[in-house]
């Protein structure tokens, strides 16, 4: 009997200790999710910075299909003028708008790269090859940063919803909301189709 009583007491103590070790988990996971998001933004910025150079190179080297180029310029302008609200990560609408704008630039750029295949003179210039490598690298970095953010948000949101995090949330972190999850980019899966029958100009 004494053993059982002691056992229960021990179990309660262990549960308490376990619960307390989780006291910092919500802010810790929140910080890592924020850091992962900063990396996402950083890589998107890196891509946006590449675009003017890319456009100038393409314009200079070939009599390039105008509509494709314009689509890139417009998408880039939209991304550049985008206002990011402070609650972006917890606001579904803001997040959707962000995703739509970045996605538009992604598909405009990949279309540009597909069309560029038709211009051997352009492809042969060293400047274009460099930019192409940089763009590919940046797109890959974006994919990695997004994946890291998705993982970090999964951990954070799980912590908010499971014991003992849910207890700490109600006690100390009541204002914390689950963060928006990113979709795995459908634009990245499909190669854009380009109709070469109608060459611009």
């Amino acid at each position: 009997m004494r053993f059982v009583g002691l056992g229960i007491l021990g179990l309660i103590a262990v549960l308490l200790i376990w619960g307390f070790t989780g006291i910092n988990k919500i802010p810790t996971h929140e910080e890592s999710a924020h850091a992962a998001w900063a990396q996402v933004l950083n890589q998107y910025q890196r891509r946006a910075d590449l675009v003017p150079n890319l456009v100038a190179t393409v314009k200079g080297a070939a009599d390039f299909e105008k509509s494709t180029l314009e689509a890139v310029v417009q998408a880039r302008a939209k991304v550049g003028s985008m206002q990011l609200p402070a609650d972006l990560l917890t606001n579904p609408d803001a997040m959707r708008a962000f995703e739509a704008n970045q996605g538009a630039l992604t598909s405009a750029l990949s279309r540009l790269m597909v069309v560029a295949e038709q211009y051997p003179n352009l492809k042969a210039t060293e400047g274009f090859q460099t930019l192409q490598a940089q763009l590919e690298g940046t797109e890959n970095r974006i994919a990695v940063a997004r994946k890291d953010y998705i993982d970090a948000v999964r951990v954070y949101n799980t912590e908010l919803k499971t014991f003992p995090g849910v207890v700490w949330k109600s006690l100390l972190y009541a204002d914390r909301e689950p963060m928006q999850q990113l979709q795995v980019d459908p634009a990245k899966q499909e190669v854009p189709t380009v109709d070469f029958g109608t060459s611009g100009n």
Partner: protein
Amino acid sequence: MHLRLITALVLLCFVQVFPGYAETPDLPALTGRVVDRAGILSDTVETALSSKIEAHEKAAGDQIVVVTLPDLMGRSIEDWGLLLGRGWGIGQKGKDNGIVFLIAPNERELRIEVGYGLEGSLPDATANEIIQSDVIPHFKQGDMEGGVTAGLDAILAALGGTYQPPVEPSTAYDNTSSFIDLDFLIPFLFWGVSVVLGLLMSLRRRWDKKRNRHVWYIATSSGSSSSGSRSFSSSGSSFSGGGGSFGGGGASGKW
């Protein structure tokens, strides 16, 4: 009674710790600086590559591994580069100065995955240049060993700041402007010489230090070694990653 409490505590610790490691897929074993799973390298070439990497690692601290895979199992080569680099922890923790040079001969794809810390000295464009003009010409002729060796040499040169693309332009380059300009080359020459000299000097210094520490390494090799520390062994036998991380930098190519 205490025993029961301790057991419960220990069990709970496991419960707490375990979820973090649950999703790592099986990686090939990191058997050395060259992991030739596809079997395209002879022993002599493998040893030569390993010792080159080891020399650079001792001089500059960067960790490089050459990996060949027989099968990408439906994943992209970018996925594999990241998976292997992060999974093995190539590069030193905090410095993230690792490189994974990955070749998939059956899919005819290759990738140079560059750790965060080396993205400056080996930017994507340079990695692409190495792949396109140093490695692929060899691969196209079926010379796998030559391609891997040339690629590694170029990577090491880039890290040392002395990389120059091969003078003979590949077929992809049909631009008419002359590639080599003497005025442009002179500062590079000076720079190259000083870098090589510096490298040699630091190599010597490392070597001297290493000799004194050698006994210590052997003495403690049977004991526990913390996984996060840099544990460079003198032979390739017990090589391990230093905990570096990767962010998707580098370049890929096909041939």
